[in-house]
């Protein structure tokens, strides 16, 4: 191949591949706004409150990235996306970052031209049942009909689980979560299966949440985290280290309040490598932590025991506290 042909082929490839975007960071700076893909409304993760303000664990991650890049956690534009539309929206350049309870799997990582910079929430599929059933394990659900949302791996996971256990169950599939929840609330099915974090949100949305329990058993691995295009390693690094910084900050006991005092110097030292390499402001991590708090604060505010989600840290505790959150060291 002649050099000219090669260059032409390369250019053609660039044009046809899902757009260049090598400079997502520059684009965000130029726009002075981060465009973040979120869910269409999942309590605790990304949902608009009564005043139309986006709230949640995934939303706070968008805010953390905006604080890191633009120095202001408020400079985010949210784009609600369905499960089907989310990855295409990212590939097509409609969003800079997908922060929408998405499971990191090998096929998504390799087939879609996407990168999963890290896991922000270790989830797993579980079951919700009425408390009056008195069951403690999904193995007691023989004969049950189970409500499930289609279009994800949830039904297949559950079907495989019950088949292996030698139990007969039936599924009632719905395209929308609202419909599935309504069917469960009307006792059209005996149980509801979804990722446990989603179940916590669904439970909170039921008319009588206290009359329903989420079984402790987890039947799948669902590592949820932010997603970016794989064509921009610099941006991937920025997302990865924003996530790790939230976790490391909790481990170092740096919280939002401490950014007003001596903690700011520690945060600056921790974040120093990103100043030169990524061109971030030297106080980027101070802005992140002042804007959203550390990982523990983000978790407790959106998902914790004091919220309608009532989720405990569980495996999402720091590795030093019996969990599996383990961020590489900074700086």
């Amino acid at each position, binding site marked *: 191949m002649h050099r000219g042909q090669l260059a032409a082929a390369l250019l053609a490839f660039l044009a046809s591949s899902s757009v260049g975007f090598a400079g997502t960071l520059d684009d965000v700076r130029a726009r002075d706004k981060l465009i973040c893909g979120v869910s269409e409304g999942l309590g605790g993760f990304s949902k608009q409150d009564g005043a139309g303000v986006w709230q949640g664990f995934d939303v706070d991650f968008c805010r953390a990235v905006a604080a890191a890049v633009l120095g202001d956690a408020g400079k985010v534009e949210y784009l609600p996306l369905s499960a089907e539309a989310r990855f295409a929206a990212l590939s097509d350049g409609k969003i800079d970052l997908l922060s929408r309870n998405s499971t990191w799997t090998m096929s998504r990582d390799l087939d879609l031209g996407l990168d999963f910079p890290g896991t922000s929430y270790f989830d797993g599929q579980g079951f919700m*049942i*009425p*408390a*009056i*059933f*008195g*069951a*403690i*394990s999904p*193995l007691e*659900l*023989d*004969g*049950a009909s189970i409500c499930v949302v289609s279009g994800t791996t949830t039904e297949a996971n559950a079907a495989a689980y019950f088949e292996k256990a030698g139990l007969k169950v039936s599924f009632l599939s719905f395209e929308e979560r609202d419909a599935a929840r309504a069917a469960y*609330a*009307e*006792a*059209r099915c*005996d*149980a509801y299966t979804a990722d446990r974090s989603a179940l916590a949100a669904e439970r909170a949305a039921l*008319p*009588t949440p*206290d*009359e329903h329990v989420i*079984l*402790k*058993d*987890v039947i799948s691995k669902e590592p949820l985290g932010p997603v970016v295009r794989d064509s921009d390693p610099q941006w991937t690094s920025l997302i990865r280290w924003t996530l790790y910084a939230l976790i490391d900050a909790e481990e170092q006991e740096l919280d939002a309040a401490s950014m007003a005092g001596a903690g700011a110097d520690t945060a600056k030292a921790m974040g120093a490598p990103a100043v030169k390499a990524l061109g971030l402001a030297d106080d980027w991590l101070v802005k992140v932590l002042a804007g959203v708090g550390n990982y523990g604060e983000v978790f407790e505010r959106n998902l914790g025991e004091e919220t309608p989600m009532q989720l405990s840290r569980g495996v999402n505790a720091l590795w030093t506290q019996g969990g599996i959150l383990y961020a590489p060291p900074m700086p």
Partner: protein
Amino acid sequence: MRRPCPDLIRNLVVALLALLFVMPAVAQDRVDLSPRDLAVVRINIIDLLANEPRLPLPIKQRRDVLRTYYEEQSGDLLWLNSARAGVMVSRLTNATDDGLNPDDYPGQQLASLLVAAGETDKRSLAIIELYFSAAFLEYASDLKVGRFLPNKIDPNFFLTPRTIDEAAALAGVAKVADVETVLHAWEPQNAEYQALRKALDDYHALAVLGGWGTVPLGDTLKPGMTDPRIPALRARLAVTDGAAATAPGEPEFYDEVLVEAVKHFQARHGLDVDGVVGPASLVAMNVPIEDRIESIDFAMERWRWMPDDLGRQYIIVNIAGFELRRIADGEIKEKMAVVVGKPYSRTPVFSDAIRYLEFNPYWNVPAGLAAKEELPKLKSNPAAVAAAGFEAVRGKDIYDVRQVDWAQVTPSRFPFQLRQKPGTNNALGRVKFMFPNAHDVYLHDTPSRSLFGRAERAFSHGCIRLSRPLELADQVLAAGGVDGWSNQRIDSVVASLKNTVVNLKTPLPVHITYLTAWVEADGVHFSSDIYGHDEKLLAALDGKSLAW
């Protein structure tokens, strides 16, 4: 009868669930109905069970047995119009008394249904009656056979999963007015379980009073010493081991009375009974009462997994306690120390029956062990292996190991069965007790006597080594209906070094168990969780599966 519209029942269940939420929590322990209303409820119950495709899961799962019961029985209902409902609710909300978790049972929800019952229609009352029957069956089953299938928790448990006779359970409720009496009958009836249940009450009462304090870590405390930690030691043992709450003399002096209390504690915890408070004793003393209660809960759950009928006489081995007992007619006839499998070659948990004894047994070296441990010795010094009593067998031929060209033999090409002849060095000692099983586990003597002096005795490859095998042989032959075996005859057979098999006329049941808590005359005994089985049970209760 009109087939009910599914929407109707659905709405009804939803309404019931909604009622649960809005009804004030007024204590109400029974629902009274007129005979006429009762009859309508009965008709609804039978109609629901016969015709309603969508019933709440706990009822749906038991549809057939419930339908049979309610169709055949014509008198009172079981729960409505009866004080039983209130008692059932309180039993579920007090499930901790049974070593179970109240959060796992719908006690609160059933209580709310009782409150709601006064306000609802006959069809809802029918559902309430059925919910109570389903909850009763669930609880009776959990009491009788446990919450978990043993092998789902741990592949080292080879106990047959059991179920209860639900029809008999329902019929039993109808016969006896007092549901406590009914439920008691569904508990394991053996003395060990009942003693644990009683001990659990005592420990719960102790826990309410605050349990016990800790003894600060530090140097080993020996009798006769004076130490500032002695008052804490005395206070700790005053709670469980009969130490005087206040010292008769100098408070910091380790006196004789306290030594006795320490020994009492050590005996209950599988420690060396020497009155010396070293690190192991301190650690055991500082285990919080909640953890001890958990051990009792676990032991009760494991008893529920055991066969209903252990046998009139039987052998029971507790792996975690390193002890074997022989029981006859409910009495302990023999207790002896045993050595069990190492944590990486765990003795499995199962029940079987001893069928024969073999005096002066050959030890057939397992192939893996022969290739790995014996082959290098055979290559380097066959004479030493021969001197230890080993010979090589191929087909019907027996070879002196000194005459085999071991250079030709490799671990993957090892055409012999290596075995050790009867004799003083034989790995199985003078006798083995066989209950042929898939795990190749049996009871046997051992030449390694010194291990019985250790407090923790997990050293074998899985078999159970006996501290006093010949005494047990004597007893097992008698229990197995074999006449004419005096001690003298056993001794002379052993002395002959001749391989001798004696079949039992009546197989003797043997139960290999794993219990980290049990009750003796001097109180509750606890052992460490050598195989980590307790940890797995705890994880299962928590909805996790642990790798093993």
